[in-house]
């Protein structure tokens, strides 16, 4: 409990750091957001119009006033107004987030369904040809960038089967689940492949470690069936590193998969942030980076708490 409190107490501090970093960085991008928003039409604005637009978005103030307004706004649940969308930043983020969350969950499901059994299989067939086969595939999987795999999938589908991935308007899960799944399954496989490879490698090596432990030998020597030794005795302990890895990967995926979203033309968080950076949409970049960082920290904390659930001997926060 103490540990949880200490970790939660560190959240505001790290978020404050992230907020300062992103606030300063986005303001160092050359060019101003009004020109970026209106393009060539910005030239048609009278100085007075330009000033009132800047005042509307609050970017006419000195930087410390802007920062103070932003931070005190956040404390009131107001992340500011996006210059590009003309709407509250939080609304824009929450509109994009379900897709990113769904994609991350789907990729993790794929990674665990494929990776965990593959890793256990390889560990129980240690140094046999089948183990080598799994390791080679996992190594290749881990070395394949998502954008290479994504393009290969699209190419194979279009050249080999004459079909193209379902693009077009994105269908949210609660409106059209089938169409939604059709749109997300290929991106999820693209992201899940390397993820599955990492899960395979880590679960194999964790399982090998555990299988050579004394208590597993004891279970075996007292005549416990091989299946029960693997699934009941060894697996729970081997899961700890798998949980760590999956948690961290999942945390990263919640930040949006910029490149995969780009390849499959998905309106997720990653592409939104990229566009916001390029558009110098200060409020949107600041808000979304803070949102992503917070998610990442929460996932990390949950991973730590999961250790305790998996291994009651672990006492968090003790040196």
């Amino acid at each position, binding site marked *: 409990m103490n540990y949880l409190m200490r970790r939660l107490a560190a959240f505001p501090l790290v978020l404050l750091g992230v907020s300062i970093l992103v606030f300063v960085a986005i303001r160092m991008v050359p060019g101003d957001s009004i020109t970026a928003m209106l393009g060539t039409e910005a030239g048609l604005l009278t100085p007075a119009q330009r000033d009132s637009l800047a005042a509307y978005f609050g970017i006419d103030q000195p930087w410390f006033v802007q920062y103070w307004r932003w931070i005190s706004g956040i404390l009131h649940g107001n992340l500011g107004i996006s210059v590009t969308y003309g709407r509250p930043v939080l609304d824009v983020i929450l509109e994009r987030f379900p897709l990113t969350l769904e994609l991350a969950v789907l990729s993790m499901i794929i990674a665990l369904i494929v990776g965990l059994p593959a890793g256990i299989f390889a560990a129980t067939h240690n140094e046999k040809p089948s183990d080598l086969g799994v390791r080679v595939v996992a*190594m290749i999987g881990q*070395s394949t960038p998502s954008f290479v795999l994504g393009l290969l999938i699209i190419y194979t589908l279009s050249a080999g089967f004459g079909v193209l991935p379902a693009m077009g308007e994105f269908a949210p899960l609660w409106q059209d689940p089938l169409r939604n799944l059709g749109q997300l399954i290929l991106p999820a496989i693209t992201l899940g492949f390397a993820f599955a490879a990492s899960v395979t490698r880590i679960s194999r090596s964790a399982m090998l470690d555990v299988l050579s432990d004394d208590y597993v030998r004891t279970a075996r020597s007292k005549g416990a069936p091989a299946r029960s030794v693997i699934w009941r005795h060894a697996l729970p302990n081997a899961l700890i590193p798998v949980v760590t890895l999956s948690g961290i990967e999942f945390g990263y995926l919640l930040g949006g998969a910029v490149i995969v979203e780009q390849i499959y033309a998905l309106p997720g968080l990653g592409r939104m942030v990229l566009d916001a950076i390029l558009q110098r949409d200060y409020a949107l970049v600041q808000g979304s980076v803070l949102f992503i960082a917070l998610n990442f920290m929460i996932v990390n904390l949950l991973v730590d708490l999961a250790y305790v659930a998996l291994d009651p001997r672990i006492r968090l926060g003790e040196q």
Partner: protein
Amino acid sequence: MRILRAIFGHGSGRIGGVIVGVYLLIAILGMLGLTPHNPITQYRVDRLHAPNGAYWMGTDLFGRDVASRLMAGVGQSFTVAFFSVAFATLAGTVLGLAAAWLGRRWDGMLMRIMDVLLAFPAILLALLIVTVAGPGTWTSVVAIGIVYTPIFTRVVRGPALSLKAREFVDAARTFGSSPSYIVTRHLLLNLVAPLTVQVTLALAWALLTEAGLSFLGLGTQPPAASLGLMLSDSRNLMETAPWLMIFPGLAIMISILGFNLLGDALRDILDPKMRRAPA
């Protein structure tokens, strides 16, 4: 010499070593301009040629030789990867050693800064830095270097803390060795093994990030060649000229594979504790 022999005596080390060696050669040839054709010359009459005797990997939309661009691109990617990892290693080692040696407030402050950087999604941090400084080779180096600095800081700080508490460090202090001598001689030298493994694996990530940045158009700028950019350009011509996608895609993948294999082998060789369960 001994380490080379160990690498080549290790199954995946051998394959990784050969891959990395071949790539280094290609990268050097690419950087020296020793390519079959000039990578930016446009042979307009030979546009979109499939691979043949004259153009081993075909030509692109502008009639440029894909093989030559690939070699130049490998040179480019490796330059960015090596310099960015060198940056991250140097910065991370100095910060990690400082945190471990100075302890207390300095340690807390430095590690919180690293927490902030780690809470920032890697590719977004790199994107932000690149947008601030304007895209280009050296911006990519700095961006990727900053992104990976916290990882090196952590890799160095942990073992450095435990080394600092060991008897030989106490003994050195008693003999009157200066802090700088202890840090460089006793701490740093003992950190070479974990750092070597980390550097090799970081090179694989750096190649990946560089390719990602240039894929998004924020890395190396055209007409210079880069693997990510070539791959990105191939998207619209995928069906008519698949070689534009396949060769750069494979080139990126195999280079990352090489460093991953080498990193795995080095971990087995340099860290005997890990030998029990090589993944």
